[in-house]
């Protein structure tokens, strides 16, 4: 289970790199990382600037509100900074960073009970034609709320694959699962999403490893 992964940044770093692809670090990232590892803190600011939007959006889709997304994104970057001394460059920095962000969000949700009122008000009782006729902004809000209600692993898979345009292999590396499992989880996530938007119940499906 993702929630059971150790929060220790050193363990996060090591486990992320086990699923790594050699030589996947961008040259400009490599330079900034090396500078951070030499103790040049301002170099981390360049990495923050480069990835803050992606990390924020990932966190927002996970927690579906700005305040929590802000807190999670900030915490993810701090964890990354604490662990950057152990980053060896065997995987893309973004892959490693996303893994930290996903784990941060998962542990945040595990520690906080979902607001039942928020969940109940977010999904229409019946959407006979899947939000047909609903304004775009409202439709986006409803879909985001539905995504936030997906089971953890399905939600993580859908967010990383659909909104961050990662390959199945990259998502598998971040989540520590196989490509086949990523595809199956994504398929389940999409079917559950449709089911929720049509007013049905969730199917937890085979959300395993």
């Amino acid at each position: 289970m993702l929630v059971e992964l150790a929060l220790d940044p050193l363990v996060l770093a090591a486990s992320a790199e086990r699923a790594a692809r050699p030589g996947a670090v961008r040259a400009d990232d490599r330079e900034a990382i090396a500078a951070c590892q030499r103790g040049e803190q301002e170099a981390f600011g360049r990495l923050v600037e480069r990835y803050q939007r992606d990390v924020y959006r990932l966190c927002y889709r996970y927690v579906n509100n700005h305040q929590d997304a802000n807190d999670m994104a900030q915490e993810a970057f701090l964890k990354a900074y604490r662990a950057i001394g152990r980053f060896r460059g065997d995987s893309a920095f973004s892959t490693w960073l996303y893994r930290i962000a996903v784990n941060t969000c998962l542990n945040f949700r595990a520690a906080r009970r979902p607001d039942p009122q928020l969940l109940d008000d977010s999904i229409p009782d019946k959407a006979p034609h899947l939000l047909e006729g609903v304004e775009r902004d409202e439709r986006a809000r409803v879909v985001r709320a539905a995504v936030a209600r997906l089971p953890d692993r399905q939600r993580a898979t859908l967010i990383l694959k659909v909104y961050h345009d990662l390959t199945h292999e990259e998502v598998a590396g971040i989540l520590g699962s196989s490509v086949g499992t990523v595809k199956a989880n994504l398929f389940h996530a999409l079917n559950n999403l449709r089911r929720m938007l049509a007013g049905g119940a969730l199917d937890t499906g085979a959300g395993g490893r």
Partner: protein
Amino acid sequence: MWGHVSDDGLMDLVEGSGPAAARTHVEACARCRERVAAAQEALGLAHGASVPEPPQAYWEAMRRRIGRLIVAETSRGGFGLRPALAAAAALVALLGLLPVRVAREAPRDEAPPAWSALPVPAEDAGLAVLQGLDADEDELVAMTSRVSLADIVSALSDAESQDLAQALRAELNVGPS
């Protein structure tokens, strides 16, 4: 005989790939065909659900906040990298290009609003101007009790009015009316 396509195989079909045998099965199997169509419909809706984008000021504030937290942890020995002096120098470098128009820090625990059109207080020069214009209660009372010029002129006697008119003519070099 081809059984139902696996879920990961159906996902390939949703994304437009997958072996021909799987595509042939889905064309013939209503159940698999429905599941693929449902996933495609959900995928289209998911793609349209964008995240509200915070303004540029938010991203700058986030970078500054992360920089401050890193320096604070380093100063406490949390990261075990450079001494506190080097950490402070790094913070100056990180913030060096950002103009600080008002000598005031934003509250540490307050997240910058995602969609505010206003700059954060530390960078809001207009805020200082507004605060400089603030009048205390005594000043407000004095302002509201002050009489206007019209009140003064209308209270002049005839003789005083003539003296005033004469003085104004002399000032303006205008002859008697």
